[in-house]
C-alpha cells in the first residue's frame, strides 16, 4: 500500500502566548528557538510561553518563518527582511529582545542587540541614563577623571550627539 499523500505531513506545534492565544507553527521552524527545542525534546507539542505577549509572539513567528526558509540564494532577501524587521519603536524592540533572549534565538538576539546599539550610539550620556533608568553614581571629580581619560571620544563628533531619551 503506497502512501499517497503528496505533501509530507509536517509536525506542527502550538505556541501559546501569555494572553492565552494559540499559534500553529511547523516544528522544524520553531526549533530555531533553543527553549522550544528543549521542550520538544521533552515531548511537548503545546508550548506555553508565559513571558511572551501575543503581539511580540506574532513578530517572532514571522522572523522564524522567514529565517526557516533560508537558502544560499535568498541571502539578500533575508538581509532586507532583517533591515525592515528592526524598524520598530524602542519599546517594541525591547519587548522583542527580551522575548528572543527567553526563547534563545541567537541570530535574532544578535540582530536586535546590534539594532539597539545603532539606535543609541549617538545619544548623550544623560539620555542613556534616562533610557536605562541608571542613576549617576559618579562624584564630579570621578566624572572629570573618566572624561579626561577618553577626552578624544567625547570631543570629536560633539555636533552629532542626540539628547533625546527615546
Amino acid at each position, binding site marked *: 500500500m503506497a502512501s499517497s499523500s503528496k505533501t509530507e505531513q509536517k509536525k506542527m506545534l502550538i505556541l501559546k502566548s501569555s494572553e492565552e492565544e494559540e499559534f500553529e507553527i511547523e516544528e522544524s521552524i520553531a526549533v530555531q528557538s533553543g527553549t522550544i527545542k528543549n521542550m520538544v525534546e521533552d515531548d511537548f507539542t503545546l508550548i506555553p510561553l508565559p513571558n511572551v505577549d501575543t503581539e511580540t509572539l506574532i513578530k517572532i513567528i514571522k522572523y522564524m518563518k522567514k529565517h526557516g526558509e533560508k537558502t544560499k540564494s535568498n541571502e539578500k532577501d533575508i538581509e532586507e527582511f532583517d533591515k525592515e524587521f528592526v524598524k520598530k519603536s524602542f519599546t517594541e524592540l525591547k519587548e522583542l529582545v527580551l522575548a528572543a*533572549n527567553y526563547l534563545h534565538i541567537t541570530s535574532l538576539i544578535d540582530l536586535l542587540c546590534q539594532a539597539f546599539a545603532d539606535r543609541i550610539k549617538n545619544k548623550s550620556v544623560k539620555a542613556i541614563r534616562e533610557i536605562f*533608568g541608571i542613576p549617576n553614581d559618579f562624584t564630579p571629580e570621578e566624572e572629570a577623571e573618566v572624561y579626561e581619560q*577618553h577626552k578624544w571620544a567625547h570631543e570629536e563628533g560633539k555636533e552629532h550627539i542626540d539628547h533625546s531619551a527615546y
Partner: protein
Amino acid sequence: MEVLAMLRQLIGQVKQLLELHAASSSSSNISFHPQTPPLLHLPRFYFLNRDENSAEDSCFNIIMTAGKSENLKMLEPGKPPPKKKARKERNRGEVTGTSHSIENLDQQIWKEFPEDLIEAVVARLPIATFFRFRLVCHKWNSMLTSQSFSEQCAQVPQPQPWFYTITHENVNTGAMYDPTLKKWHHPTIPALPTKLIVLPVASAGGLVCFLDIGHRSFYVCNPLTRSFKELPARSVKVWSRVAVGITLCGKSASEGYNILWVGCDGEFEVYNSRNNSWDRPGTMSSNIKLPLALNFKSQTVSIGSKLYFMRSDPDGIVSYDMVTGVWKQFIIPAPLHLSDHTLAECGGRIMLVGLLTKNAATCVCIWELQKMTLLWKEVDRMPNIWCLEFYGKHVRMTCLGNKGLLMLSLRSRQMNRLVTYDFSTGKWMKVPGCILPRGRKRQWIACGTAFHPCLTAVA
C-alpha cells in the same frame, strides 16, 4: 482633629505590635504577620516623606521599619512626620528627576533589562561611543574588566582594523585612524610612557608590539585602554636590527601570545606571554640561506600560528611556525623595477605591495602569491589618475598596516599622501589628513601598524 485621632489609634496599634514582639531582640526585623489586621489599616499619609531615591514603594517595607524605636518619635502629635530614612543607605548622586512621573512609567520598565543583554548591546557600540558611555555609571565604567563583557566582545564579528601610527613631529604620541568612520583619534593621554621612543612593529588580537628605536627593549600595549607591559630583557648582547612578528596562542589575547624576533645572522628568540619569558626554541634549519637579508621595511604577516618575513638574496619569503618551531624558505622571484615593497595578507592569502617605477612613472601595484607555482601574480594597481600625482617625482612608500585593509603613506619632497586599499573589495580610498585637535598642520606619518581594536585585550 481627625488626624490626631488617627495618630492616637496608630500609637495604640504600634504599642500592641511591640508587645507582641517584645521577645525579638532586634526591633528592626519585625516580620509581617497576616494575623495582625490592625497593621493593614496603616494610613498612607504617614509615609509621605519617604526618601525620594527609594525605588521600593511597598507598604511592607514601611511596616518593617515601624518597629524601629526612633520611628516612634514620629508619633508625637502636632509635629509633621520627619523624613523616613531608607533602610539601606544608598550613595546616589543626582536624581533623574523624571523617574517618578507617570508618563515615564515606561522607563521604569527598562530596569528589568538583564545585564547580559546590556553587555551584548554595549559590545556592539562603536569604540568611541563605548568610551563616552563609560561615564554612565561605575558599572558601565568597569565593563572593560568584566569577564562576561569580554566574552560578549569576542562574539561580535571583527570590525575593520584600526591603524596606530607615529607622526614625525610627535614621536612619542600616536595617532589612531578608524577607517569605518574615516576619523583620526588623538588620545590625550598617550598609550606609552612619554620618555620612550618606540616604534610599532607588529600586532595581534588588539595588542600592539613596540620596539624601542635602539632595538633593545620590547613593549606590548593595547592602544585603546593603555594596558601596557615592558617585556623582560632578551639574552642577546648586540642590539642589531631585527624583524618581529606576534601570534596569538588561541582566539584572543587572554589565552596568551608569542612574539618572535629574528636577525640577519639567523638568530631568533620567542617570547611566551604565559611564562613571561624568552626562549630559544632551536636554531634556524640549514636550508635557510644565511646571511638572512631581511627586508626590514616590509611588515610581517601572520596567518594562524605562522609568521612570514620577506627576504632578498635570494628573493623570497621565510616562514616560522610557532607551534612546530619549523623554519621554511620559499624562493620567489621579485617583480622587476620594484621598490619599497611589503608583504600583506587578506583572508589567509599572502600579498605583495610595492612601487613600480618605470622611467618617470610610478605606480602602486598589488600582487598575490600563487602557492602552487611560487610566483607573484599582479592582481591590482592604484588608479592611474592618482599615480599621475607622482609622475616625475621621487616617491617613497611606507606601509602602515597590512591586515586585510592596507594603509600606505606615499611621500615625495613636498607631500605625504595617505591611502587605504581594501583587498576584499579592491577599493582604493583617500585618507583624510592627520591634523591634531586645535591644530592646522597635517602631520607627517612616520610609521604604523594595523591593529584590531579590542577593548578587552590586556598586555
